[in-house]
């Protein structure tokens, strides 16, 4: 089908007065035309008209009252300590919201009431025009375009054209290169993903208070959220003070969970037989799916579940994925006991923790 097949759709608009029923033969029922206008009560009854006027004015006056009440509420109710004294949300927030909302709503209802009751309600008919320009305009535009290109002579001088396009195109390079320092200097060093702050003999400490953990105080069935001792530097332990971005990223990577289970329940992974201490086993807390911290532990099954996307890992079986979208087990931190009986790391993690990335296996 093409435009030529349907000339009726492009006839000048003047022949289509909607009040005149159309007589297209294929139509089973002819267009009866617009129905006659019906007068509203407010058009023909002065009483109804006055009543509508009063209603609309009342709405606008109520809106004014509400706006004044807003100001009153603003100065009457305090925020701060007593913010939640009313409706659990604070008298100030609730009263400001209600007065502002009512004021706006009443104005809106008033205007729409005005439009429906008192403004003229004659439907008007406007003719449509094709979205396309007339053919002669199209031809003239193409002609002008060709004339312009012809006078520019770009088409005849490919050397000029190509070098110009090349020059403008290569500007993309400076634009892209300029973004390099979004991560300035060695902050762009992606090999950092492969390492955490853990190092041999660093103590495992409780994550909020930073106290070291005695192997003997960990009960079977416990799950302890823990952190590297370096996150809690003191004069005693001698770790350097961490600040800002570095502190945050080390915190994000170093988080671990420690569980103790009956040693017989543990299926030791190859080469990791000596990574545990009497059934105390330690894994990265960061999910290998997209990096949420894992938190929900079910002690009877030794399963731990990520609350973000429900990846489930079996801590008794090398933290293998038993359910959910994760692809890899949680990395395990090899641990031992130091001279004072505290849990310490044997080394850093032996693989990158957290979400996968393109170069992961290369590091």
């Amino acid at each position: 089908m093409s435009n030529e097949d349907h000339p009726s759709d492009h006839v000048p608009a003047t022949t289509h007065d909607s009040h005149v029923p159309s007589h297209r033969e294929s139509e089973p029922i002819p267009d009866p035309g617009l129905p006659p206008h019906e007068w509203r009560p407010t058009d023909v009854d002065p009483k109804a008209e006055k009543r509508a006027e009063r209603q609309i004015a009342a709405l606008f006056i109520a809106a004014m009252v509400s706006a004044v009440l807003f100001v009153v509420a603003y100065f009457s109710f305090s925020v701060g300590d007593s913010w939640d004294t009313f409706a659990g949300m604070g008298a100030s927030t609730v009263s400001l919201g209600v007065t502002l909302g009512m004021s706006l709503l009443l104005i809106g209802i008033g205007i729409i009431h005005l439009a429906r009751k008192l403004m003229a309600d004659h439907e008007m008919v406007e003719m449509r025009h094709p979205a396309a320009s007339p053919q002669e305009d199209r031809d003239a535009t193409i002609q002008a375009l060709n004339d312009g290109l012809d006078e520019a002579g770009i088409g005849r001088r490919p050397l000029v054209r190509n070098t110009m396009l090349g020059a403008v195109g290569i500007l993309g390079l400076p634009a892209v290169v300029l973004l390099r320092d979004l991560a300035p200097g060695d902050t762009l060093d992606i090999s950092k993903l492969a390492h955490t702050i853990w190092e041999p003999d660093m103590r495992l400490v409780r994550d909020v208070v930073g106290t070291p953990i005695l192997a003997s105080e960990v009960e079977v069935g416990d799950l302890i959220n823990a952190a590297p001792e370096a996150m809690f530097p003191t004069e005693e332990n001698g770790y350097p003070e961490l600040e800002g971005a570095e502190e945050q990223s080390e915190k994000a990577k170093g988080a671990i969970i420690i569980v103790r289970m009956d040693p017989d329940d543990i299926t030791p992974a190859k080469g990791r037989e000596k990574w545990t201490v009497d059934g105390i086993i330690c894994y990265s807390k960061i999910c290998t799916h997209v990096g949420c911290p894992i938190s929900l532990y079910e002690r009877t099954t030794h399963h731990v579940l990520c609350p973000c996307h429900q990846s489930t890992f079996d801590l008794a079986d090398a933290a293998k994925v038993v359910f959910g979208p994760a692809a890899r087990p949680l990395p395990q931190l090899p641990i031992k006991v130091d001279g004072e009986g505290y849990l310490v790391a044997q080394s850093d993690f032996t693989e990158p923790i957290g979400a996968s990335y393109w170069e992961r296996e290369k590091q």
Partner: protein
Amino acid sequence: MSVDTSKVATSNRTDAATASKPGPAGSLASWADDRLGLATAMKKNLRKVFPDHWSFMLGEIALWSFVVLLLTGVFLTLWFNPSMGHVTYEGSYDQLRGIGMSESMASTLHISFDVRGGLLMRQMHHWAAMIFIASMMVHLLRVAFTGAYRKPRELNWVIGCILLLLGTLEGFTGYSLPDDLLSGTGVRAADGFLKATPVAGTYMSFLLFGGEFPGESIIPRLYIVHVLLIPGILLALIAAHMLLLVYHKHTQWPGPGRTEQNVVGFPMLPVYAAKAGGFFFMVFGVIALMGGLLSINPVWKFGPYDPTKVTAGSQPDWYMGWPDGLLRIMPSHMESVIFGYTISWNVLIPILLVPPLMLTVLIVLPFLEGWITGDKRDHHLLQRPRNAPTRTAVMVALMTFYGLAWAAGGNDIIAIKLHASINQITYFMRGAIFIGPVIAFWITRRWCISLQRHDNEKLLHGYETGIITRSVEGQYAERHLPISGTSAYTLTARDRDEIYSVDGDTDAAGVAAPNSRSEKLRARLSSWMYQHNVQKPTRAELEEAHHHAEHEAELQSGLDHPVDGHQFDDHRLRDTDEVPLRDH
């Protein structure tokens, strides 16, 4: 009507108002026109006609909630401090006093507890964002279900789809700004998504975060994207969307006097301007009431972001829920290492492939439909969803996919509320996401076709009155009455579907015509799309049916009037044309 119209209110005149001598407003207008020359354009547009229907209001909700977003957003910027610098909170909220957090979190708490009206504006901003995205989606469905995206409006459909994408990104960047525990978890997941991007993903993550996650740059960067970059593009695209709407003139529903060539409705000035303006205040007012009465995103309950913590039941804002659901139902172990490089299919498919694919499917819908049907005409009359069964079914299938993915994003909540196993729910969703849309497609299409048949029944035999008559022979029959002429015309005011056919596979010399393979595909698709549709009756069929009805009436000629069941009350219908069209 027999109403006395001699004393008609002066405002409601049938003739156009004539210009009177210029007052102060007139001289201001001429001053402006001497310099701007706008009168020529305004002459037409001040009285531009807009058709009226409740469903045309949905896009307006989106527009006005965007205005509310701009207003409340400007208010919030006066106090918000988009910095990840570490401070100790010393504000009014008791339970977090003395806790270390970023300045953006602290200033969010300051807005919530120490600025009067601050919490109201925060909550209004968040509610307006939800309404903005929800109304865009419902508006999109209205446009698709009524075929308003057909020529010449395809490009406006594309703009609308991009607006939906940008609105979603704007929402995500916005709710990440307070740097609370919930949104921070979302940002970390987003970092995981970036890292799963093949080849450049790791570097993209490092560049965006200014180094390793979480860094100290992400909040200020998201902030400038949220308050300048995306709103700027949104404004420009909304302007283009509206300009095209004005240029094309709004679509309208068919009906008596409403044709493809005209537009029937109220003039912009005064009625449409008043209705739209009044509606702005109503949308604004409802959002203010919601902001005052309904708590949303109480960041003080979540606490500041800490990369080692998370809360159970973590959910993104609802419009991010469907990719999150796809992420959740991916099977385990979907990762491969090829030449030493890691490809995370478990993230790649649900986040980086399917959502862009869905957006692409949406964008190409009008072009695909136009190609299959071969229809190059302009369309200004809307179609009822039933009259385009395949399109309606495709949209419902897409909605079903979306809805299932969205529900999967709440699989933990469903499991808790229904005391069901989260594993079972997830297994179910893995299958349902593929089967559900197919079932939905099939049911919807059959349903539409049945409704089309029902329309034809009404045209040919009238509507069911619910009145049972018994003939002298003892036969029971339900009385049908003809629908009104207006309703009958409206039911027939639609195109007949034409199945596209290939004119000839080969030319005279037996050589295959160019593109004949794609033409064959097109013919097959066209037949798939249209062949089961029910076409409106022809004039001959209508006349035949009416003749039959008259014949039946003759059989009742023993009565002095047709049996209509109202012999014993005063609800006798005076004229069949006044019988209201009953909606079954």
